[in-house]
C-alpha cells in the first residue's frame, strides 16, 4: 500500500493503450458497425419497396385483365353487329335481285303474249280473207278492199 513511480509508469501505459485503441481498433469496428447498420436499413427499405412494387404490379395486372376483357367484349359486339349488317344487306340484295328477275320475266312473258296475239290476228285476217275469197268464188281486189280489210282487222282486235 505504497505510492511510488509505478503511478507515473502506469499513467503513461494508460495513455499509450488508449492511443493505440483510438488509432487502430475503434475506427474499423465502428465503421463496420455503421456499414452493417446501413446495409440492414437499405435491405429493409428494398424489401419494403419490393413489396410495394409487387402490390402495384398486381393491381396493374388486374386492371389490364379488366381492360382486355372489356375490349374483347367490344370487339365481339361490333363483329356481331357487322355480321348481322352483312346478312341484312345480303338479304336485301337478294330480294332486290329476285324482284328484278321476276319483273323481267313478267315483262318478257307479256311481250311474247302480245306477239302471239299479233301473229294470231294476222293469220285470222288472212284466213278470213281466204275464206271470203272461197265463199265469193271471185277474186277480190286487194287494193279496193284494203280499207275494208283494215276495218275488219280493227274490229278483230
Amino acid at each position, binding site marked *: 500500500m505504497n505510492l511510488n513511480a509505478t503511478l507515473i509508469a*502506469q499513467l503513461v501505459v494508460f495513455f499509450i493503450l488508449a492511443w493505440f485503441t483510438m488509432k487502430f481498433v*475503434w475506427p474499423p469496428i465502428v465503421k463496420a458497425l455503421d456499414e452493417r447498420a446501413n446495409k440492414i436499413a437499405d435491405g429493409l427499405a428494398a424489401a419494403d419497396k419490393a413489396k410495394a412494387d409487387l402490390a402495384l404490379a398486381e393491381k396493374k395486372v388486374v386492371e389490364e385483365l379488366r381492360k382486355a376483357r372489356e375490349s374483347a367484349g367490344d370487339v365481339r359486339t361490333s363483329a356481331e353487329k357487322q355480321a348481322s349488317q352483312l346478312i341484312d344487306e345480303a338479304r336485301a340484295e337478294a330480294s332486290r335481285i329476285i324482284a328484278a328477275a321476276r319483273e323481267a320475266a313478267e315483262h318478257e312473258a307479256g311481250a311474247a303474249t302480245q306477239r302471239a296475239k299479233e301473229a294470231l290476228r294476222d293469220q285470222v285476217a288472212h284466213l278470213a280473207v281466204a275464206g271470203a275469197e272461197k265463199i265469193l268464188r271471185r277474186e277480190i281486189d286487194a287494193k279496193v278492199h284494203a280499207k275494208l280489210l283494215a276495218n275488219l282487222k280493227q274490229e278483230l282486235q
Partner: protein
Amino acid sequence: MATEGHAPTASEYVIHHLTHLNNTGHAQENIIDWSVINIDSMFYSIVIGALTVFLLWLAARKATSGVPGRFQGIVEILVDMVADQAKGIVHSAESRRFVAPLALTVFVWIFLMNAMDLLPVDLLPRIWEGMYAAGGGDPAHAYMRVVATADLSAALGMSTGVLLLCLYYNIKIKGVGGWVHELFTAPFGSHPLLYPINFAMQIIEFVAKTVSHGMRLFGNMYAGELIFILIALLGSTATVFGFLGHVIAGSIWAIFHILIITLQAFIFMMLTLVYVGQAHESH
C-alpha cells in the same frame, strides 16, 4: 521474513504475498518513494495491456460489415456498449473520438487485470519463487503480486490519467480564462468573498474524484486478493476442514469475484466517462 528451512507462518505468508517485486529487492519502506517502481505491477499491466489491444486489434483487423464471427461479435457488443454510454455522457463528438476508445481500453484492460485474481493465488508467485531460487536467490525474497489493479500506485496512476484528461478538456472546452473563472465562481456563485471557498471546493472536488476513482478499484481488488490469500491459508492447514473450507469458500468467493472484477472495470470506465463529461459542462 521466512528463512530457508521452515515453512512460513500465516502472517509471513500473507505479508510475502502482499509485497511487491520492485527495483530495490525488498519491501518499500516509506509510504511515498518515487525512486521505487513495482516491477511485477508494470510487467503484468503492460503484458495484459498489450494483450488487450492485441485482441481488440485482432477483431478490428478482420472487422467486416458482413456477417460477424463470434469473436468479432463480442468485441462489437463491447464497442457498442461503450459507444452508447459515451454518447449519453460526453456531449461532444470530437472528444468522443478519443474518450470512447479510451473507455473501451480501460474497461477491457482493467477487466483482464482484475481477472488475474481468479488464478490460484500461489500459482504465478510459486513459479517465480522457483525461477528465483534456480537463479541462486532466496525464494523468501521472491516477491510477486499478479493483480496490477490491487497496486495502489497503478490504480491511482490510471485515475490520475483521467484527472489529466479532465484538466485538458476543461481548458480545451472553456479556455483558460473560462476555466479559471469557473474555478473561482462555481459552485457557490460570483462574489469576491466566495472566491476562496469556491476555489477550495473545486480543488477538493478534483482531488476527491481522482483519489476515490483509483482507491475504489484498488480497495476492491486488494480486499479480494486478501480474501483469496486467507482462503488459501485455510487450505494450507491440510486438515479435512481446511480442505473443504478451501474448496467451498474458494469456489464461492471466486464466483462472486467474477461479478466484482466486471463491476469494478465497468465502474472505472463509467466514472472515466462521467468525469470527462463533467469537464465539458459549464456551471
